């Protein structure tokens, strides 16, 4: 089947919650003096936490697939695995096509650089080529409406201005696979409407989308299919209406 754009096979992801409390010298001394402490540590249940267990799904070309589930269900972990940021403990994910991860915007902004310099830096971080950024530069600037601040260090920007610039850089591509964590509406009211419209046009523009949201309304509106995750386990995959209704029933609303 060559129409599959993303394929996840038995993906499991383990985090070790105890990593923060790894072995330290201080602990070593304490245990040396008091062997009981050492025994206690060894007997403690291990802190393995499975954020995802045996998750499998396929996303076809042009499909818009939603991911729902309560906080901590593993949605963001799944997005990060598809984006290649995390490597699954078991199983594998294959993505066929260039991915635009709109998970967190403005990755790699340097506050000391000007807006112009940051467009190029952030673009490079997103994997754009120099030629591409140069050709789209005017479009990015026009969308962000920051023409008058191009030579100002981003340090002096308001947080809304930074978000507008980041959003404009991120959405200038036409990716084959778009990964979105919530509708990212940023800036003031006018820009929020504009950014939401842009997101919708990207989602509806025929690209393959993997979309996380807590709003079942927007999921029902946008998605063809929905994957419901609960504590890292797939509870159901099906049409948006069917799965959303099941999910809402489970949550008790």
């Amino acid at each position, binding site marked *: 089947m060559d129409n599959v754009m993303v394929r996840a096979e038995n993906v499991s992801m383990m*985090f*070790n919650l105890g*990593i923060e409390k790894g072995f330290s010298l201080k602990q070593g001394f304490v245990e040396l003096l008091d062997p009981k402490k050492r025994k206690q540590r060894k007997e403690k249940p291990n802190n393995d936490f499975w954020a995802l267990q045996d998750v499998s799904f396929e996303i076809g070309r042009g499909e818009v697939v939603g991911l729902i589930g309560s906080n901590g269900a593993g949605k963001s972990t799944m997005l990060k695995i598809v*984006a*290649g*940021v*995390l*490597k699954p403990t078991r199983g594998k994910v294959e993505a066929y096509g260039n991915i635009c*991860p709109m*998970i*967190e915007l403005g*990755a*790699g902004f*340097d506050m*000391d*650089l000007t807006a112009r*310099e940051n467009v*190029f*830096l952030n673009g*490079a*971080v*997103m*994997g*754009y*080529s*120099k030629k591409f950024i140069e050709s789209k530069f005017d479009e990015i600037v026009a969308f962000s409406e920051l023409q008058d601040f191009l030579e100002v260090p981003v340090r002096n920007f308001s947080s809304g201005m930074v978000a507008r610039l980041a959003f404009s850089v991120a959405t200038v591509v036409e990716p084959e696979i778009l990964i979105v964590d919530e509708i990212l509406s940023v800036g003031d009211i006018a820009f929020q409407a504009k950014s939401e419209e842009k997101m919708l046009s990207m989602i509806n523009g025929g690209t393959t989308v993997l979309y996380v949201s807590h709003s079942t309304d927007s999921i029902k509106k946008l998605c063809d299919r929905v994957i419901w995750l609960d504590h890292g386990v797939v509870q159901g995959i099906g049409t948006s209406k069917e799965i959303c209704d099941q999910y809402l029933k489970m949550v008790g609303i």
Partner: protein
Amino acid sequence: MQFVRNIRYSLKKYGYLLDQLVSRDFKVKYKRSILGVAWSLLYPLLTTGVMALVFSNIFRFTQPGVSFLAYLMTGLTYFNYFSEASNLAMSSVVANFSLINKVYIPKYIFPLSKCLFVGINFLLTLIPLYAVLLLTGTGVNWHHLLLPYSYLCLFLFTLGMGFLLSTIAVFMRDMFYIYGIVITLWTYLTPIMYDLAIIQNEVMQVAMKFNPMYQYINFGRMIILYNMTPSAESFGACALSSVLVLLLGTAVFRRNQDKFIYYI
């Protein structure tokens, strides 16, 4: 072959990012300073001047026909590159966590970009070095064309150390402190301000030649100060040490890079 193809693909895809990271460092370094890039030229001159002032009175430098200032500056040029680049490379992975956590970027790009960035600075410090060579009457000769060989070895060695150190630093932040002490010790164990001949203990003298930094500096001094072609052993020692450390560093980095994200 597969490996070489991977590198070529990676360079093509991430070459522009590398370029951006290096130029970012460069832009940020001199922002808001009045002298700007001129500091890259002045700073090594001034620090060498201070050291020459201090150390020419402590050690009796007994090499007829060789200027102590030129001797010192040759050593410092090499060593300062290593110490600055390895330090920046060590913290580069930890410092870029926010990027690593958000988008997929090959992680080797961070130590590599730091080593390249300091490399540009290194090339700038060659200007004051040559100024000193001319002023002290040391002069320039045709053998200087061999110097880039030692620069390349120095770069590869530093890159290997950068990979190794940045990996350790991710799992063990103590490394930042430990390495600060190591590099101080390393500075004094490398004959930068003194001549290896003043070491009385013969075993010690031989042991000190196993220091790769000594090999690169010695290679440079052979050419710059003594107007000689370095020996075949010198060529070999430089290549061997740099390639070995680079292979070790790359192997350690590659084995561990997928685990970085849990420890940062």
